[in-house]
């Protein structure tokens, strides 16, 4: 099930809220666990077993790790962490990467091993990372083991962040899991985040996504430069508003149930370097890799050669995490190279240069990265690059480019403003200036009601509402 659906908004969510707030506090994790399983099973009735398995594995491993640590048997505790990682990565490896590996082995050695053709279980990359981080956190002493399997199950399956993140590390909500206090003001915060996210996904991302869909599907050989740039700009906006919209909805729903998840996006397109971009984009994934791969490998407290190796490893992994295909590996490698270059060379210059240089530099490189990201088929990516730089001989623009430009100009303008903190700051100032807090609230609610009804009308028409993370 996805949040941006009529089913979620008008059946699942009302029923869940009713159940959740009707039962005593001690039952609430149980309710969350139960409804989350339904949420997941709605689209994946079979694979829900896999998630339960991963839950059970780390529930037991966490307990053992703690027990061994308390007895001073660090080796055995380490062994348990290793075992949890092996099981989780094996799950992920089998269901996500097996066919990719087989395909490459076949290609390399001219073999004919049959592919498994397994459908990728939705959200597997998110929940395996969460369960692994739990066992690791317990080992590091950053969290106590969770004795209540219902509470632990609620953490893993928690429907707000189950299928598209953010990746919530156990230690960040360990306390909230058993001692959270839902209240009206946090619920309000949740509503406004959820509405913001819904609007971002349904009104902004889907609208501009249609432009990318039509342009990327055209014959690249006859694509003029302008159309190609409009297309990739559209994709850049689509993926940002889609992904951050999902995160907003997740964080908002979390608030409604009394949780505080960490932020996942922080206006990434305002960055002045790629290093900064990755501190603002999919923050929970970057944090996970930093804490669980980069730092354990020695981080930046080792020789330059090893630092380069560490960055390379982290970014290859980040790339392949996004999907089992060469373009994602290339995409990760691309960022790895850029980040290494920035770390040892470019950042110094970027800091001295005027701000716009950093913005242009970053946006250009990010747009290039989206081309690698968007096409599984590397040769399609190449032909798209050729179109962007006029190497296909299709000229700078044609009537179609002009049509796409002027019919989306206003939308691009809105997207551009929404991708910056401008709107948020202005709204904040406006609300501050209003003398009466009641009037401020009325204004805010009127805005959300508008977004809500407009979003519903797009959902009712149901023409274009993709789920972009089925490969993650």
């Amino acid at each position, binding site marked *: 099930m996805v949040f941006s659906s009529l089913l979620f908004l008008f059946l699942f969510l009302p029923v869940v809220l009713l159940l959740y707030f009707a039962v005593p506090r001690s039952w609430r994790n149980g309710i969350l666990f139960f409804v989350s399983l339904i949420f997941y099973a709605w689209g994946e009735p079979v694979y829900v077993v896999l998630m339960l398995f991963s839950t059970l594995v780390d529930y037991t491993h966490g307990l053992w790790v703690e027990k061994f640590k308390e007895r001073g048997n660090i080796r055995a505790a380490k062994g348990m962490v290793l075992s949890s990682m092996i099981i989780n990565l094996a799950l992920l490896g089998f269901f996500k990467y097996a066919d990719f590996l087989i395909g490459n082995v076949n290609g390399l050695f001219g073999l004919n091993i049959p592919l498994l053709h397994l459908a990728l279980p939705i959200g597997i990359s998110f929940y395996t990372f969460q369960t692994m981080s739990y066992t690791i956190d317990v080992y590091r002493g950053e969290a106590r083991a969770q004795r209540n399997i219902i509470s632990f199950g609620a953490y893993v399956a928690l429907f707000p962040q189950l299928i598209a993140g953010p990746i919530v590390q156990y230690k960040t909500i360990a306390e909230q899991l058993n001692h959270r206090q839902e209240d009206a003001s946090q619920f*309000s915060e949740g509503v406004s985040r959820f509405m913001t996210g819904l609007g971002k996904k349904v009104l902004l991302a889907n609208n501009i996504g249609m432009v990318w869909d039509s342009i990327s599907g055209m014959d690249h050989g006859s694509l003029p430069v302008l159309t190609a740039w409009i297309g990739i700009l559209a994709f850049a906006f689509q993926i940002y508003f889609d992904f951050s919209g999902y995160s907003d909805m997740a964080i908002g729903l979390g608030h409604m149930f009394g949780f505080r998840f960490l932020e996942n996006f922080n206006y990434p397109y305002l960055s002045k370097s790629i290093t900064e971009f990755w501190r603002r984009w999919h923050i929970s994934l970057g944090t996970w890799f930093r804490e669980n791969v980069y730092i354990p490998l020695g981080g930046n407290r080792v020789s330059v050669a090893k630092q380069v190796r560490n960055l390379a490893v982290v970014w290859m992994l980040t790339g392949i995490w996004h999907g089992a295909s060469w373009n994602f590996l290339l995409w990760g490698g691309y960022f790895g190279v850029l980040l290494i270059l920035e770390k040892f060379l470019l950042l110094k210059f970027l800091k001295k240069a005027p701000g716009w240089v950093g913005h242009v530099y970053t946006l250009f490189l990010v747009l290039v990265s989206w081309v690698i990201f968007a096409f599984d088929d590397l040769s399609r990516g190449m032909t798209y690059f050729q179109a962007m730089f006029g190497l296909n001989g299709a000229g700078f623009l044609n009537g179609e480019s002009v049509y796409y430009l002027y019919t989306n100009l206003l939308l691009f303008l809105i997207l551009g403003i929404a991708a910056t903190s401008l709107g948020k700051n202005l709204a904040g100032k406006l609300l501050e200036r209003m003398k009466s*807090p009641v009037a401020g609230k009325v204004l805010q609610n009127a805005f959300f009601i508008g977004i809500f009804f407009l979003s519903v009308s797009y959902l009712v028409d149901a023409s274009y509402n993709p789920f972009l993370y089925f490969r993650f």
Partner: protein
Amino acid sequence: MKQKIVKWMTPVVFLVLIFGMAVANLLSPTRGFSESENRYLKTMPKFSWKTLLDGTFTADFEKFLTDQFIGRDSFIGVKTESEYLLGKRDTNSVYFGKRGYLLEKKTSHDLDEQLEKNLGYLDEFTERAAAELGADHVRVLMAPTASLLEADKLPAYAPIYDQQAVLDELESRLPEGVYVDAAGVLQAHAGEELYYRTDHHWTTLGAFYGYQAYMQSLGLPVKQPSDFTTEVVSESFYGTHYSKARLVTTRPDRIIRWLPQTPQGGFQVDYNGGQKQGDSLYDESFLSKRDKYSYFLGGNNALVTIRSSNLNGKRLLLVKDSYAHSMVPFFADEYESIHMVDLRYYNGKLSEYIPQEGITDVLVLYNTTTFTSDIGVPKMAL
């Protein structure tokens, strides 16, 4: 008090919104057919463990919710209007054209191998028919659509496929004399109301010029507009393009019927081999429904035969799409019988039908846009 209002306003508004609409949806009755979309809406799917496990139940259930959503038509209207205000000039493959015209959006990117296949099948079919019946008795009339003849009504720079190139290609492939230059004849009347503003069909006037082109190419006498009186049968026609692009500012179209001054003999019309019979080329019942173009010959049917009182022995096989429906009344009495076949629905073999019914003449009548992607055309080979 004030503090309480501030604290509780947002949660209460949100809960009222989602619970209110949830309850409203529960209470609203299930609709079967949607007049405005001209299709059957999804109803509650039947539950079974099998469909639950393979995912079809959940998918169907979501379709059911979406189709049956309360105020569906208004919501879709709001969406379309918001797209228009945002500066978009197309939605659901329909252009918001100038002067209230809604036009098809089909670009060169939408053309695929089906066009090439269809050209091949059509050519092969006409060659065969010409060999059997004589080239004089075989015609292909490819009706141009509004996006060719009303191109000035398209939004500025709107991409559209090159319809004239398709027509030229077709003409060059067909046996000499078979191609009817309807586009040429209609072009001479550019500026007249040849197409509906809200529908993908030609108007009765457009169909009349199509008829003239057909008669001219056969070398038969051609009736003139002065041979007819006209009658407005509907002033509230919202067509297929409007169903896809519901702008509130759209005005309805008029449907006009042309009646010959000199009274015609009667007709016997048979639908789908005896399924229904009548004596009129028009079906009044559709005028009170959404799908008003089906006033002409009762809309899409697999096989419709029309027998006239002109017993001249000429029997026409008309392989067609719905553009034919408004054109047939102009020449229905030129033939003893007309056998209208819609290959999208007809499952018999034309190679058997022709000798069986003693067919003497063949006309293939499609509009270009339908023809480029129609998956029924390959059945011509059967």
